[in-house]
């Protein structure tokens, strides 16, 4: 049964917070702020603290999560979020720190940032890094601004073109457009990789950069990556790596070694910081030396005497993209994760993420079309085209039916170039039993699609609510509660 809204539980006069009385002589707010500046009413809800606890405890129980079950959302790397990271992120020395305190009072925080930047650079084969971007898309935006400035400083401000594979995540073109670039799509060849001819054809003196996801969003490693980078560089462009799929590369290979000039990480994917229902994240970027001068200010720097400071003496910096220094407490969580794993642990992550994805691929290959059924990296993209043609069962139907088997569905309809796409990313923290149970469910659903498609098309059946009327959600737009007319 759906739970009522907090506003529908509000009773005038009810109180929750236990606040202090005013212990200084009170003065009339109207006199202090000006009559015209005071609001007449504040229509916030009025509930008790126990009702707040019950309301959000019950809501949480109707929300699937990694702590509850297998969450194979492709390209999101829903790995286990270690509880120790939550413990250290709440230490008063980090959580109770104001960003504008004098540098001498925050040396521990600056040291952590400095060391994290070093480790991210080493892991990615880059020369420097910054955690100022708070999400992957934010990191893309920053990188493109730096690329734009790079070309400006190197005398070709008119490089206005950014090449983006048709399989790329939507944030890539959106970020490029946001920086005033024009986007040119590069097609994917029959092998699910970048079409070299299309790339060569598109390369010219107007190209500012190529934005490439590697491993790409079809779950495959761009084997021609070294040649791709050389080609772009020869054309005077820079190469940006969307590092969302970095989980497959940890300890095995590095974007920097492939020739990439800049990349973004998603700490909330690869480095286990929790997704929090949609955020907060951390979209740190790594850059080669050629782009280092353009990093946003402040840069965390280290003096000879070993002390750390927030350095704004950076003439080529492109400015800032955050009110302070990025999502610091997620930097603490990412730092703790890397220090817990070390080099050997990071390599284990890459190996087992790839093992798990290929195991799923192998187990379900007879039952579903796999556009590119060869060794994949950390995720496998299958297609429900066979089911759709045979019984009209679509990718979305299979996803909804998976809910009845107790699993969160994979990513649907991404990448757009694969029809009826289902992108499955198991991550390295899932057991063989869980992978087997998931594959068994998929195989069972494939059977149902063939023998009893209705049960799949009308799924889910065992969830608090069934499928929602998405069209009505747009047509009769209702994006906030309003009290019923008295």
């Amino acid at each position, binding site marked *: 049964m759906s739970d009522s809204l907090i506003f529908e539980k509000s009773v005038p006069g009810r109180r*929750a917070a236990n606040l202090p009385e005013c212990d200084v002589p009170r003065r009339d707010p109207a006199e*202090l702020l000006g009559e015209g500046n005071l609001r007449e009413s504040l229509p916030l809800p*009025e509930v008790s603290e126990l009702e707040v606890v019950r309301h959000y405890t019950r809501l949480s129980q109707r929300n699937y999560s990694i702590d509850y079950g297998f969450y194979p959302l492709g390209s999101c790397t829903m790995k286990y979020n270690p509880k120790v990271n939550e413990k250290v992120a709440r230490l008063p020395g980090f959580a109770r720190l104001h960003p504008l305190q004098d540098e001498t009072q925050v040396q521990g925080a600056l040291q952590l940032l400095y060391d994290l930047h070093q480790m991210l650079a080493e892991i990615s084969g880059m020369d420097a890094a910054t955690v100022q971007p708070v999400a992957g898309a934010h990191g893309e935006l920053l990188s493109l601004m730096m690329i734009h400035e790079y070309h400006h400083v190197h005398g070709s401000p008119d490089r206005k073109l950014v090449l983006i594979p048709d399989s790329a995540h939507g944030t890539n073109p959106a970020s490029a457009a946001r920086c005033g670039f024009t986007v040119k799509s590069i097609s994917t060849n029959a092998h699910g990789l970048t079409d070299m001819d299309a790339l060569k054809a598109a390369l010219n003196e107007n190209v500012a950069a190529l934005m490439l996801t590697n491993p790409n969003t079809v779950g495959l490693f761009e084997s021609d990556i070294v040649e791709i980078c050389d080609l772009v560089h020869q054309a005077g462009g820079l190469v940006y790596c969307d590092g969302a799929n970095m989980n497959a590369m940890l300890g095995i290979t590095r974007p920097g070694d492939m020739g990439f000039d800049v990349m973004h990480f*998603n700490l909330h994917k690869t480095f286990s910081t929790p997704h929090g229902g949609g955020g907060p994240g951390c979209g740190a970027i790594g850059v080669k030396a050629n782009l280092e001068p353009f990093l946003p200010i402040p840069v965390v720097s280290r003096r000879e005497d070993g002390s750390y400071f927030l350095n704004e003496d950076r003439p080529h910096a492109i400015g800032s993209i955050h*009110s302070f220094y990025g999502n610091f407490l997620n930097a603490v969580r990412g730092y703790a994760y890397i220090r817990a794993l070390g080099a050997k642990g990071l*390599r284990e992550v890459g190996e087992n993420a790839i093992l798990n994805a290929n195991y799923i691929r192998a187990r379900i290959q007879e039952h579903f079309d796999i556009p590119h059924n060869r060794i994949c990296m950390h995720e496998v993209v299958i297609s429900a085209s066979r089911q759709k043609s045979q019984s009209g069962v679509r990718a979305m139907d299979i996803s909804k039916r998976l809910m009845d088997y107790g699993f969160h569905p994979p990513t649907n309809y991404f990448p757009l170039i694969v029809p009826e796409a289902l992108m499955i990313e198991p991550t390295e923290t*899932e057991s063989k039993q869980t992978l087997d149970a998931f594959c068994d469910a998929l195989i069972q659903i494939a059977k149902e699609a063939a023998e009893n498609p209705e049960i799949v098309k009308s799924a889910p059946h065992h969830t608090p609510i069934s499928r929602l009327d998405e069209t*009505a*959600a747009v047509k009769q737009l209702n994006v906030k509660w309003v009290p019923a007319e008295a």
Partner: protein
Amino acid sequence: MAYIPHTDDDRREMLKTIGVQEIADLFAPIPEEVRLTGDLAIPPALDEIGLVRHLQSLAEKNRNLDRYLCFLGAGIYDHFSPAVVDALISRGEFLTSYTPYQPEVSQGMLQSIYEYQTLICQLTGMELANASMYDAATAIAEGALMAIDITHRDTVVVARSVHPHYRRVLETYILRSGFKLETLDHDEGVMSMGVLSKQLSDNVACMVVQQPNFFGNLEDLQTFHDEIRKVGALSVVCVDPISLGLLKPPGEFGADIVVGEGQSLGCSMGFGGPLLGFFACKREYQRKFPGRIVGATTDSQGRRGFTMTLRTREQDIRREKATSNICTNEALLALCATIYLCEMGKQGLQQVADLCLQKAHYAFDRLCALAGVEPRFQAPFFKEFTIRLPFAHPPASVNQALLDYGMIGGYELRKFYPELADSMILCVTETKTREDIDRLVSAMAQITG
């Protein structure tokens, strides 16, 4: 030790099923030349005991605000967060879920986002609020770009009394998107309407203002809106959500876009992040606003349910034509603000705002009674105020001295406002008792005496 459950037997069986001999065979698609041979040069793994001790030692190198009285504001505030907030947002079902793409198994997150949107509208007096932005600075920038998109004009004007870090981010976003930014100087700590009317023209897409402004002073939002409406520019008003416990909401002045920093709503300071940029606007801009939004609808049995809606504006569908590139946002901080606003409720937020107002004025009056300390401006203020210090005791040295009294002093204006180098902004919230304020005053008396 990377939280990996596989035993050697598991791995053997899985490799067999895949049809390869060993793990390294799976790296075939990765060109030999880019495969790492040795280990990454990062410190060796730490077990959980060593890890916690190491992080504790780093944390101990910082002076945290459980041990110092904090009178520093300037965008991040030492407001009180009731224990119930962290207790609920740390539940694994919220903490470890992601963007609620599949509504049937994510009603918990979806309903709480719908409730968050409602609370922000109630607070700001606006008709529509999105699910969250990164922080106030990027919310302002995206608001300005939205105004440019709506008005098809190329210039944004920002008051110099807006937070300097916000202005720096706005400048980065606007200039890097190929548009123009102009700054309207302050006059005695507030916007001067005379200068405003002169500087506005019909190529101005919007004007950005902050209420209360960076110096803590109240701007005249009524005249401001009258003036910009004359040239058809939109308003982007950045507000302090706690002040809205008392202050008339920008919606009642006809604001087009209202944004702000939600850290004050129960979120920790966290050395400046993660933060919460709230974003609200008029209903008519429902095709244009950035970020995600959740709407109510019904399921096949007529039961109410919530789902992400107006999706076609977003990057995963509209790609380069999207209204913004935002995907992962600050969802858990929005949940934090939601629980905070329900816990405070109508009476609680009013009381917090009143406590801040009364204590800030008590501190202001007592400090300004000290010889050598003067108010820097005359305008009304809410919880922050700017004082001028005697020449012999500039803000930096006063703050250094305050440290020995166990206090973190005010924001030194020298860096972004050279003309105010002799002044600092002090902030007093509900977390400071009368005795704390008296201790500040007596310390200042001794330091500047």
